[in-house]
């Protein structure tokens, strides 16, 4: 029985974009759209308004001014994102695959990460592609670069340390600022012909044997694939039929054991394809046929203009910049996995989640350094000057925007392939969670007393945030935080505080 299920999993993986038993990486990002600098554009008062116009404006302007005021107030949050502590590490999610899509205009480079763990003889992938690919359009990428990209964009944990409230109080008194400054945060060509399957091209690239197939009808293609040892899950025929009617070709890869031995590789390297097509999409339907449960997919977009979103599913930013209890520091992986599951449920299992959207020039805080121009070229960023042509020592401005999407999909909730569009939105976002360490000094001043009283409320708030984000039991959280033992002695009734003096 167990032999069977392992085999079934291998079967599934063979016919899909994702790879069997792949264990992916969690990635995400932190900053969110700030939307602060809009106020200047509200000068819509005509220079010489008529009396009627002025009367109308007199009604409208107070409303507009109110909004401007609200906006400016929101805009004061600091951009500082805290001290980096940890990231949601790789291998958190089962059955995950990773894809990098670098795209500008219609030119697209797709890197398919390969985290296949089983016997390489068992490995195969079938990917629908919009065009017949020449040998030059297929390339082998570096797994390390992809790992770097995943680390750079991973969801992160940051920490802050509270200041001594006595000194802070003094400073605030001096500055007259009382607001909280916490950052918001071929073999049988004849047979093929008989089945209506044409092997458009056949190449060996690195350790892979690659075929580009086109077919007249799906039944023939299905038969051809199974006769050639590509085990296609039952039910795939309908999906193959749909892709064929849409004039898609099939990119089929298997491992060439001889080449692999010659190269002395122990792992499979990412496969890259480059093509030109107006279709900005990722075929996921083959992956959902006969799939055993939902699958995870991480998609990293490298674009010139701005953020990428799905046009046929809801693209949702994960909750971010929230304060959570300190003990999560040692359980950040569990925290993030449960948070993600909770968000998937909240979106009725139909959401696509943004984990990171950031300009490739920088990060704050950095879970890993931004990728170099060379690494980006390795992932298909073709619109940048090659590093050799750049002046030495010059800081290189990366004209690259990274969007990291995370989707958990199955056939019931994701009937259609993922379609995307690039927007002009360059606002930054990262899935960032905050640990805020309390001040533990012994100073005594009215501000310190008030601080200690507020601390318990803050812990309670953090506990509720955590329960809400992850679905963990609130009682267990409070116990883990040891809230009950906290400074109850400090707590006074409201009237005691009123007449304390």
């Amino acid at each position, binding site marked *: 029985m167990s032999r069977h299920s392992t085999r079934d999993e291998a079967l599934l993986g063979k016919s899909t974009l994702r790879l069997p038993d792949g264990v992916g990486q969690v990635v995400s990002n932190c900053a969110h*759209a700030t*939307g602060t600098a*809009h*106020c200047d*554009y*509200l000068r*819509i008062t*005509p220079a010489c308004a*008529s009396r*009627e*116009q002025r009367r*109308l*404006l007199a009604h*409208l302007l107070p*409303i*507009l001014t109110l*909004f*401007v005021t*609200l*906006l400016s107030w929101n805009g004061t949050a600091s951009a500082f994102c805290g001290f980096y502590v940890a990231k949601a590490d790789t291998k958190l999610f089962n059955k995950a695959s990773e894809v990098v899509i670098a795209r500008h205009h219609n030119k697209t480079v797709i890197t398919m990460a390969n985290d296949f763990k089983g016997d390489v003889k068992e490995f195969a992938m079938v990917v629908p592609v919009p065009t017949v690919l020449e040998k030059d359009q297929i390339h082998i990428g570096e797994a390390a670069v992809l790992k770097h990209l995943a680390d750079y964009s991973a969801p992160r944990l940051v920490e802050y340390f509270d200041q001594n409230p006595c000194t802070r109080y003094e400073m605030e008194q001096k500055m007259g600022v009382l607001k909280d400054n916490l950052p918001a945060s071929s073999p049988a060509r004849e047979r093929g012909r008989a089945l209506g399957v044409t092997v458009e091209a056949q190449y060996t690239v690195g350790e892979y044997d690659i075929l580009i197939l086109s077919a007249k009808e799906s039944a023939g293609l299905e038969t051809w694939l199974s006769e050639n040892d590509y085990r296609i899950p039952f039910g795939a025929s*309908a999906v193959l*039929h*749909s892709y064929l*009617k*849409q004039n898609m070709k099939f990119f089929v890869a298997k491992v060439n054991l001889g080449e692999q031995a010659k190269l002395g590789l122990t792992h499979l390297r990412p496969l890259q394809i480059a093509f030109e097509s*107006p*279709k*900005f*999409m990722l075929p996921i339907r083959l992956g959902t046929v006969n799939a055993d449960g939902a699958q995870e997919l991480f998609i990293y977009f490298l674009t010139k*203009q701005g953020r990428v*979103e*799905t*046009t*046929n*599913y*809801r*693209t*949702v*930013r994960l909750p971010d910049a929230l304060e959570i209890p300190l003990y999560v520091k040692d359980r950040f992986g569990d925290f993030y996995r449960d948070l993600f599951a909770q968000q998937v449920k909240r*979106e*009725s299992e*139909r959401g696509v989640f943004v984990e990171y959207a950031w300009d490739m020039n920088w990060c704050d805080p950095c879970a890993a350094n931004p990728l170099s121009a060379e690494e980006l070229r390795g992932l298909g960023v073709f619109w940048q000057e090659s590093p050799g042509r750049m002046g030495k020592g010059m800081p290189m401005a990366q004209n690259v925007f990274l969007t990291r999407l995370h989707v958990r999909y199955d056939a019931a909730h994701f*009937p*259609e392939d993922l*379609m995307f*569009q690039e*927007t*002009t*939105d*360059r*606002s930054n976002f990262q899935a960032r969670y905050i640990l805020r360490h309390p001040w533990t000094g012994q100073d005594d001043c009215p501000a310190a007393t008030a601080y200690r009283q507020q601390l318990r409320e803050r812990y309670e708030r953090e506990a509720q945030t955590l329960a809400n984000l992850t679905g963990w039991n609130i009682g267990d959280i409070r116990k883990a935080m040891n809230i009950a033992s906290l400074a109850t002695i400090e707590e006074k009734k409201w009237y005691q505080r009123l007449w304390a003096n």
Partner: protein
Amino acid sequence: MRTDSLLDGLKTRFSSFDPRLYQIASLSTLLLYGLLWLHFDVSISQIAVTLGTALLTQYAGIRFYRLPVFDPRSPLISALSLCLLLRTNDLAIAALASFIAIGSKFVIRWKDKHLFNPTNLALVVVLASGLGWISPGQWGQVAWFGFLIACLGSLVVTRAARADVTLAFLAFYVGLLTARAIWLGDPLTIPLHQIESGALLIFAFFMISDPKTTPDSRTGRIIFALLVALTALYVQFSFFKPNGPLWGLIACSPLVPFIDWMFPGTRYEWSKPSSGAFSVPVSLPVLVPSSISQPRRIS
């Protein structure tokens, strides 16, 4: 007897009810729901600027062309639709879109009708110039079904003299999508998923339905709806661009004068909803005589 008189009362009330009020209410509710529950990427300031610019442009236009009445209802509908659909990080672009929408009504005209649906034109200009974007997938099922019911409700409540173009467009569009799915051998969940977009509903119930920019006769409107649906699907499945209906409507709008010439009908007035047939209007005798020197109306 009493129930009958109550029903008659309601009937009379709704027959004189301006459909735009109901439209403003449903668009506002949807916008509020989008802001609070769906976290639409639209700021309060963008909404204020869009609404403000639309009203100001309408007012300025009325003054410039010396038209007698300032009516905020039509510009509000255009502006609310823009708030629901247009995404940009720049308030100046939100203002520009609003200005183009309302301004076009005064400037781009043919035989006393404006040629393009204001919201449609503004969205296409912003999309084509790459200044902003539309997020067609951001609605979710609950909002979609809720809004669908509200839209259908509007047809009932407001007598919907010109609902034919909306219903014809939806029938052609959904029908063709379903036919495509059957041809591809896809499950019907795919076309169902494809129509589950709030943007499509706004388009069908608030843009293509605009009686001021659609052909005057019923035959003309049904032909127009078919042309828009075909162009929309062509854009979606040959150019692989989202928002097909928007491009379809903008491409087909210049054909309206030609369709009107082929199939003439009566011009639409918001105060006297009619289907455009040359028959005697069903409404009660109008108190205000349709005077000989009827002023030009822009709404």
